[in-house]
C-alpha cells in the first residue's frame, strides 16, 4: 500500500516546462494510477480479512464490526476471576479499573485492582475498554489437524502431479503430430479437437461416471488422473502454437542425422519448447489444485478426498469455527499464490501465444 501512495508522485517527470499535451498525459496518468490503486485496495481487502480472521479466537470472531488486527480485552485477576480492564474516569482522574459486576441502567461496578474492597458504580459507555493485540497462530496447526490435512494434501499432490505428467506426455505427442506432419483429414481432426473446448462437460459426464463405476474406479483417484493421459484441447492447442514457432531446419538437420520423428520430438522439440511446457504445467497445477466438481463426484470416502473436497466438508461440519475454516483456506490458496509470484511472466505470456487473435 505504500507503493500506492508513492506512485502518483513518482510519475511527475523532473521537467520544468510542460506543454499542453504533457500536462494532459500527466493528468491521465495520475487518474489512472489513482483508480488502479483504489481497485487494488478493494481486491486486497478479502485477503486481509482472510488472514485477520484466521488468527482470531472465538470471542474475537464475535466482535462487530470485526477489527482488522485481532485484539482481545485486557483482563486482570480479581479474587480468582479474570475481569476486563477499563480506563475509567473517577473525579476527573483517569485510572485503570476492572469491571466486576453489571448493574441496571447501563452501569457497572468497577474496582481498582490494587484495592478490590472499594467499588465504584459507573456508566459503562463513558469508560474505555482496554484491548491488546492477540494473534492466535495456533489456529493453523489446530485447523490442519482437524481436517486431516496431510492425507488431503497427499491425495491432491498425487492427482495434480500424476495428472500433470500424463498431460505433458500426451499433449506433447499430440501437439507434435498436429504441428509437424501432413496427413489427410489432419486439419479436420484439429478443428474437431478445438471444438471440444466449447463442449459443456455435462454432456459426457454421466456415461463417463458409469464407465469408471463399471471399472471399479469410483472412490479412487484414477478417474481424475487417467483421462489426463489422453490429451486435452487447451494444452494441445497451446503447445502446437509454440511448436510451430520452432524452426523446421532443426528438424531437418536431425532427420539427416538419422533421427526418427520420436527422437526429433525428444531431443529437438521438447528442449526448445521448455517455456511452453512450463506454462501448461503451471496452468494444469492451478486447474487440478482448485478443481472441485470432479473430485466431489468421484471421491466418496474421506481417505480419498482432495483438499478442495476436504475443505468444503470441513466447512459443512464446523461452519461456526470460522477461524479454523479461514486458516485452512489460507493454507489452501498459498501454493497457487507462491507459484503465481514466481511465474508471473509465464502467466501473461502463456495467453499471448495461444494466438487468441482469432
Amino acid at each position, binding site marked *: 500500500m505504500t507503493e500506492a501512495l508513492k506512485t502518483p508522485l513518482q510519475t511527475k517527470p523532473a521537467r520544468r516546462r510542460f506543454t499542453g499535451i504533457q500536462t494532459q498525459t500527466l493528468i491521465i*496518468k495520475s487518474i489512472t494510477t489513482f483508480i*488502479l490503486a483504489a481497485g487494488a485496495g478493494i481486491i486486497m481487502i478479502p485477503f486481509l480479512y482472510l488472514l485477520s480472521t484466521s488468527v482470531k479466537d472465538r470471542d474475537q470472531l464475535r466482535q462487530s464490526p470485526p477489527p482488522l488486527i485481532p485484539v482481545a480485552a485486557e483482563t486482570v485477576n480479581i479474587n480468582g476471576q479474570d475481569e476486563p480492564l477499563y480506563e475509567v474516569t473517577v473525579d476527573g482522574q483517569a485510572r485503570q479499573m476492572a469491571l466486576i459486576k453489571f448493574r441496571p441502567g447501563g452501569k457497572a461496578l468497577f474496582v481498582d485492582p490494587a484495592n478490590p474492597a472499594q467499588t465504584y458504580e459507573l456508566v459503562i459507555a463513558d469508560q474505555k475498554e482496554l484491548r491488546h493485540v492477540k494473534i492466535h497462530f495456533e489456529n493453523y496447526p489446530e485447523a490442519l489437524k482437524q481436517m486431516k490435512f496431510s492425507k488431503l494434501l497427499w491425495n491432491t499432490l498425487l492427482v495434480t502431479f500424476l495428472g500433470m505428467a500424463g498431460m505433458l506426455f500426451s499433449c506433447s505427442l499430440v501437439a507434435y503430430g498436429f504441428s509437424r506432419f501432413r496427413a489427410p483429414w489432419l486439419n479436420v481432426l484439429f478443428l474437431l479437437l478445438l471444438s471440444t473446448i466449447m463442449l459443456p462437460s*455435462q454432456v459426457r459426464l454421466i456415461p463417463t461416471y458409469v464407465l469408471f463405476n463399471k471399472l471399479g474406479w469410483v472412490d479412487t483417484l484414477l478417474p481424475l488422473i487417467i483421462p489426463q493421459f489422453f490429451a486435452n484441447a487447451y494444452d494441445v492447442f497451446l503447445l502446437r502454437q509454440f511448436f510451430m514457432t520452432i524452426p523446421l531446419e532443426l528438424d531437418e538437420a536431425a532427420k539427416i542425422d538419422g533421427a526418427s520423428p520420436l527422437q526429433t520430438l525428444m531431443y529437438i522439440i521438447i528442449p526448445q519448447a521448455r517455456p511452453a511446457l512450463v506454462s501448461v504445467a503451471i496452468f494444469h497445477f492451478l486447474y487440478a489444485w482448485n478443481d472441485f466438481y470432479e473430485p466431489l463426484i468421484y471421491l466418496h470416502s474421506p481417505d480419498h478426498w482432495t483438499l478442495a473436497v476436504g475443505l*468444503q466438508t470441513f466447512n459443512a461440519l464446523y461452519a461456526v469455527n470460522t477461524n479454523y475454516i479461514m486458516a485452512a483456506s489460507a493454507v489452501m490458496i498459498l501454493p497457487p499464490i507462491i507459484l503465481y509470484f514466481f511465474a508471473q511472466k509465464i502467466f501473461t505470456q502463456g495467453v499471448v501465444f495461444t494466438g487468441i487473435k482469432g
Partner: protein
Amino acid sequence: MVSSPGKRPVSLAHREALWAYAFIAPWTIGFIIFTVGPMLASLFFSFTNYNIIDSPRWIGITNYVNLIRDDLFWHSLKITFKFALIALPLGLVFSYMIAVLLNSKIVGINIWRTIYFLPSVIAGVAVALLWARIFDPKFGILNPFLANFGIKGPGWFSDPQWAISALVIMSLWGVGGNVIIYLAGLQGVPTDLYDAAKVDGATAWQRFWYVTLPMTTPVIFYNLILGLIGTFQYFTEVYVISGGSGGPARATLFYNLYLYQNAFRYFHMGYASTMAWVLFIIVLGLTLLIFRSSEIWVYYEGQLKVK
C-alpha cells in the same frame, strides 16, 4: 499401430501420415472413449429410466416431457440466464476497463498487474468460503462497511432476493483471468495505427473508439464465448455457499447444480442426461448465435469490411 517400414516400400507421404496418426493417437483414442462414446451414451440415457444399479429402461421421450413440466428445471434455467445476463456483460465491461488501465505506461504497472491478476489464480472452494463470510450479515465486513454510509446491507446469501447479486459481486472480484486476455489483445494492437490516428488529429477518446475497440473485438468475442460456456458450468461457488442445496429458497439453484442433484443425489441418471443434452443444445444454439452476430461486430485483421 504404425506399419513397419521394412516390409513393404511405403511412399514417403504415406509414412508421414502414419506418423501423424500415431502421434495424435492419445487424443483420438481419448476422444472416442471420453467424448464421442459418452456423448452418444448420454443421448441414449436421456430416453431411459436409469439409476445406475439396474440397467437403463427405454421410456421414449418421457424424460423430455417431464422436463418441460418440471418447475425446478425452468427455475434453474431462469436463474442461470439471469446470472449470465448480469454477470457476463458487467464482467466483460469491467475487465476491459481494467485491462485498458493496466495497459498504460505508468510507474509500478507490474505491481498493479500482479494484484489485479491475483484473484484469478485462486478460484474454487477457499474463495467461496471466504466470500460467504464477507457477506455474512452479522460477522462479515461488507455490511458494517455499508453501514458507514448509512446503508443497511441486505442479508446477501441468506436472502433469496440478494443471493444472485452477491454471486455477481463475487464473480467481478475474479475477473483477472479475462483481464489477462484483454491485455494481451490490447498489446497486440499495432502502434502504427495509433500513430496514424494521432497524425490525423484523433483525440484519445477517438483513438480508443475507432482503433482500440475494433481491433480488440476478436478478444471480446473469445471472452464472451468462454464466459457463456463458463456460466452454464457454474457450480463450485454455489455448491459450497449453499452446501449443495441451491438455497436460500432455491435462489442459487443453478442449472448445473440441479443437474448434479438429479444425477448424484437422486441417481436419476436418465433425467440428468436429458438435462445435459438440453444444456448442450442451448449452449450450442447461443454459441452459434454469437458466432453469427460476430460477422457484424468482430473485426479480423486483413479482412476488408464492406458496408
